[in-house]
């Protein structure tokens, strides 16, 4: 499974929403509550063995599935 599929699967399971497109604004979709946000960050850290620093935790880095992939790839290169 590639990165995108893993992330999509996590989001779909967590939100029980099966129609999330790569460019959908996850915040606008309204399912980013406090717990979801924390779980998303922890999921990405564990799944991709990265540390998401306080600096990288911001909405633009997580707004869409595509944004999340860019963020992970950037952190993986470090």
């Amino acid at each position: 499974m590639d990165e995108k599929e893993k992330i999509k699967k996590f989001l779909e399971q967590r939100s029980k929403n099966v129609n999330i497109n790569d460019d959908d604004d996850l915040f606008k979709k309204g399912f980013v509550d406090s717990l979801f946000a924390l779980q998303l960050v922890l999921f990405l850290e564990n799944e991709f063995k990265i540390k998401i620093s306080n600096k990288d935790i911001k909405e633009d880095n997580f707004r869409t599935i595509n944004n999340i992939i860019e963020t992970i790839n950037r952190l993986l290169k470090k």
Partner: protein
Amino acid sequence: MDKKVKCIVWDLDNTIWDGILLEDSAVTLKKDIDKVIKTLDERGILQSIASKNEYEIAMSKLKEFGLDEYFIYPQINWNSKADSVKTIADSINIGIDTVAFVDDQITEREEVAFAHMDVLVIDANDYFKILEIDNMKPKSITEDSKKRRLMYLNDIARKQEEERFTGSSEEFLATLNMKLKISRVKEEDLKRVEELTVRTNQLNSTGYTYSFEELNHLIHSEQHIFLVAELNDKFGEYGKIGIVLLERDSEKYTIKLLLMSCRVMTKGIGTAMLIHIIKLAQASNKQLFAEFLHTDRNRVMYITYKFMGFEDFESENNSVLLKYESEKEREYPGYLEVILDQDNI
């Protein structure tokens, strides 16, 4: 352990009643233990069970004694009690360091104490002393604490309905008809506000605590906006579940404290409260800052801020000043009706 106890987990055989139920169906309650249980309940301390027994038989015995409704998430099975205690703390969503465990058998007490160092372990023979233990005496007893068990029972009903629900989480939230009322803290709210500041660890931006006198001063202060949020839905009341303290001067608003009860962690309440504050700051053309103090428990709150457009402005050790750096128009989550008291701004 110096924390106030939020949940007491009881054994049954030779703890709540004399005798072993599976050997003798005519067990009798320990003297006045029902009074202990009911008093703890009035104090807002939750109660549960970890007993090696047959579930149906034990529950019907509790029902016979009129005590079944006092226990949430009872763990009556053949699992280890250390596991049962953990399951209960996780189900309620409280730290294990706020749990107490009562059992007559030293082996069970030692097993739980060994697995969970921070659990307060009590010998069942001392049950009549429980009410006198300092950790069992909440700082204050409020309307919300008296209703706490019922609110958790509502939560359990919600969770069951959510599990049955086939649509998305967001669609489910929309079925709850949630109403969030945000109003100025009034004098009669102060005990509950104080209780929230003491009880809340995870969803707490700074962990600042204030004495009753300080809180009372803050509600009359011209330099502060002090708000409390109250939530209800079709299942009933959650009670007063969030507070925010805003300090204002001529150029800026600073959030000194934002906290909410763990029970509303999945309901988007933190987001809604932040949106309200952002709107307040925008309406009066003020810059918006937020103080934040990192602890080992409150990362969730930091992420909430960051995902709402706040960025680190200055930081020193664990203490951060966040600044709201977004121009975006923000709207309350669609599944939530936000009701603002007239005297809000």
